[in-house]
């Protein structure tokens, strides 16, 4: 108790901008003005996940006709979907996130995606990350531009899990990386002051290498302190071999203990299921579900100030292909999680699966621009002004009247 008091005093003494390094999460949460800051976590499912088998339209007979071998059976049947609302059901391998649905903090947006029709993974991902579908020349990502419009409090205000910076976070604002997997806090040479002070002389300038180096040093000291503290604590899934689950635990830890961390980005690959989709889903979806559940659990009370958006570059063909898989399609399902999300609901402009209703006769149409959903989060959750929204999503007019936040 004494320690807690001391840390609180230190935190207040050092001003509202800086927390004492190494302070515990419960202290950070109690320091007013920092703890209730709104957070956004974006999780990108690379490879184009098949939304139709994640949120299953089990009342649609066309669905079962189009997918004789890979359709998820009716609720109640063996390995059947878990019914959500009488029309849609959840893939059974995602049972870990069902409690969030029941708690009404998990929602889906059907027939959503990018208005651009490309079926190239790389273009479609770039467009979703730059926030400017159809425009290739955009060099920065919308989360970086968003960071530029948030109150400044560097350097771990935005964290990326991964050793390379994805397009969505590229741009003029510095961001921090968290090494994926279990090794992020293992000591490396640069942790030794003798080495870092020597390199400080070399990378003290304003060139891009120096800037990256300096941001790295700042971010690492914070990440190390915060993660080491609770590395072995109960909310970390000891012994798990799944990287996403580990990473989710670390991101939650970092957000909870470092009140500055406001934006985070994670990615999970491996959804390009041209073949044997059933097996891939049965292997990968449980990890995804478990990771999301771990993230929510780790965030604790901060979950109420957090929105988690799960997106993928495009959906997949309604019909299965010749190899028990699906090919590149168009519209898809977005996932939304968060204490402020009006969940327990599938938001959609569903138009059925008959060929005449499909995009180019084969794919789910995009009736809801992914930016409509994100813009709603930016405006209502992160209090981004109309003007700033125009900066984050240039050449975009808010089109839908989505209203999924409390």
């Amino acid at each position: 108790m004494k320690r807690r008091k001391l840390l609180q005093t230190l935190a207040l003494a050092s001003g509202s901008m800086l927390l004492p390094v190494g302070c515990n999460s419960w202290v950070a949460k109690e320091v007013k003005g920092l703890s209730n800051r709104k957070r956004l976590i974006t999780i990108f499912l690379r490879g184009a996940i098949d939304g139709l088998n994640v949120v299953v339209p089990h009342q649609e007979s066309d669905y079962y006709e189009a997918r004789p071998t890979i359709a998820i059976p009716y609720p109640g049947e063996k390995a059947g979907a878990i019914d959500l609302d009488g029309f849609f059901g959840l893939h059974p391998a995602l049972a870990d996130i069902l409690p969030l649905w029941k708690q009404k903090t998990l929602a889906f947006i059907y027939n959503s995606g990018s208005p651009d029709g490309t079926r190239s993974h790389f273009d479609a991902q770039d467009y979703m990350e730059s926030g400017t579908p159809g425009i290739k020349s955009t060099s920065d990502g919308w989360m970086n531009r968003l960071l530029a419009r948030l109150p400044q409090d560097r350097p771990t205000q935005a964290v990326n899990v991964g050793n390379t910076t994805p397009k969505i976070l590229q741009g003029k604002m510095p961001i921090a990386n968290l090494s994926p997997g279990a090794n992020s806090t293992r000591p490396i040479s640069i942790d030794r002051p003798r080495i870092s002070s020597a390199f400080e002389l070399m990378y003290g300038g304003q060139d891009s290498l120096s800037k990256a180096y300096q941001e790295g040093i700042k971010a690492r000291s914070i990440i190390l302190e915060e993660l080491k503290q609770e590395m072995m604590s109960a909310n970390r899934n000891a012994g798990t071999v799944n990287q996403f689950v580990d990473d989710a635990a670390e991101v939650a830890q970092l957000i909870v203990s470092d009140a500055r961390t406001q934006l985070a980005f994670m990615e999970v690959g491996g959804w390009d299921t041209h073949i044997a989709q059933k097996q891939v889903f049965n292997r990968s979806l449980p990890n995804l579900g478990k990771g999301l559940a771990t993230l929510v659990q780790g965030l604790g009370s901060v979950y109420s100030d957090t929105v988690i958006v799960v997106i993928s570059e495009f959906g997949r063909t309604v019909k299965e292909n010749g190899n028990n898989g699906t090919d590149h399609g168009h519209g898809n399902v977005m996932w939304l999680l968060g204490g402020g999300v009006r969940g327990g609901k599938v938001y959609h402009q569903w138009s059925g699966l008959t060929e005449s209703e499909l995009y180019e006769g084969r794919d789910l149409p995009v009736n809801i621009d992914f930016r409509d959903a994100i813009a709603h989060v930016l405006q209502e959750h992160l209090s981004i002004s109309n003007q700033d929204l125009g900066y984050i999503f240039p050449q975009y007019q808010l089109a839908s009247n989505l209203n999924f936040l409390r």
Partner: protein
Amino acid sequence: MNKKTNCSVYTSWSERQLSLVLPILDYLDYLSVPPSLEVDSMKKSLQNWCILLVSIALLWLGILPYPQAMGAENQDKVLHYISRLSFGVTPGQIQQVQASGIENYLQAQLNPESIPESPVLERRLGQLDTLKMGPPDLFKSFQKYNIQLQPNKGRNLSIAEKKELQQKRNQFRQKAIKQAQKAHLLRGVLSERQLQEVMVDFWFNHFNVVFSKKVIPFWLADYENDIRTHALGNFRDLLATTAHHPAMLIYLDNDLNVAPNDKAKGNLKGINENYARELMELHTLGVDGGYTQQDVIALARILTGWGVDRKGGLGDENSFKFYERRHDYSDKVFLGHTIPGTGIEEGEKALDILASHPATARFISYKLAQYFVADQPPTSLVDRLGDKFLDSNGNIKVVLDTLFHSPEFNDPQYYHNKFKTPYQYLVSILRASNINNPNFQRLRGMFAQLSMPIYGCATPDGYKNTQDAWLNPEGMLRRVSLANAIANGAVSNKQPVNAQQLQKTLGNKFSPTTKNAIAQSPPRLRSTLILGSPEMMNR
């Protein structure tokens, strides 16, 4: 008068040399007597000659600043060529290329068969036994375990026996992967045919496959060797090699791409668009190359039946097999061409169309210019290379020759401006540090730490080579930390890297900031700092 006479003697001098000599001549003019005193002119002229000769001697001996300036420019250019045509400079190489001339170095590298391969490399490669087995044999050895593990084949196995077999099977697969990776790394570090290896790096990522999918491990080394054969050859041949290769057909699922009405069992029930799409988007036309979804479907149908005979015996020596009964024999319209349904020839025709398409010429040229010149390559260069590509029917050597002689490549603004990929960075460290027998196991871990395991890019677009992709805060810290580890002998049997030798190898070309950082730090950190310097991170 004198000046003119003297000048004419030196007409073969370059402009730069002249600019240094002319002030001397001006000075001589200033000394010389006005022209009206014709009597003394002969004597004066002789005197001037003497002064000039002394000056030239001084220049030659390096006492005046001129030879250093000349040498420096030369050295910058030499270093530029070495760092772009290879995985980095090795001890004594700058002096060697300076002596032989850049053009000789370039022509030798463009004709790798003219360069004897390093005997050390050949010996090390010879120690990798899975490389000597062909893919079908590797696959068969792997299958032996699987057959033994099948239920009801032979006697019943105990759980322990099963476990042991599974372990052996997985170890064998791992061995094939590791040896292929090791061979790749050894070639990068030790091969004398550096440009060829650089082009293998370029093309492997262009025609990317990943080590972790299905049975690709057994075709990895073979796939890379086939790419190597055509790395500086003809693009159409290279394209054909990848299109017929099991590694590619398995990676992009074309071994499962069959005519919809085929009676085959299992998951062979119809079209799979995966390879057809990437063949156009990533291998040839580029995403803006003007094809439609209908072209993707047409090409997928054209390529039905292009598959793999894993066990060998039915297909060609590489296990490629065209399964006639899986082929869609209907006529197709592909990129405006009508292609009658005749069988495997349809695919060859499609590859012809793709390889000779102007969009392909442009796409490949853009990627080459980006790899060798700048992340945002100058359009003028891309256009010129595209024309050359079309004129030469996709002769890669000719296109590269044009690239290396282009004013853009030789423009000093592009020197040293490419941020190395983690692979390029670590290999260049090994080369500069003269680490000829690196600890592969440690290096494997290092590549993983830097997010670039060899053959480990899961997506078909391959590893990027731009700064945007690789420069980030965490990555910088990891790089300098690994520089420290290597400087202290982490991959060279605890033998630390000699700083003095390293400095010399790199031509002592460091910025004032780098020099200052080195000067102000303890001497034992010198190698660490050099290997972690911006000069090592860029090429």
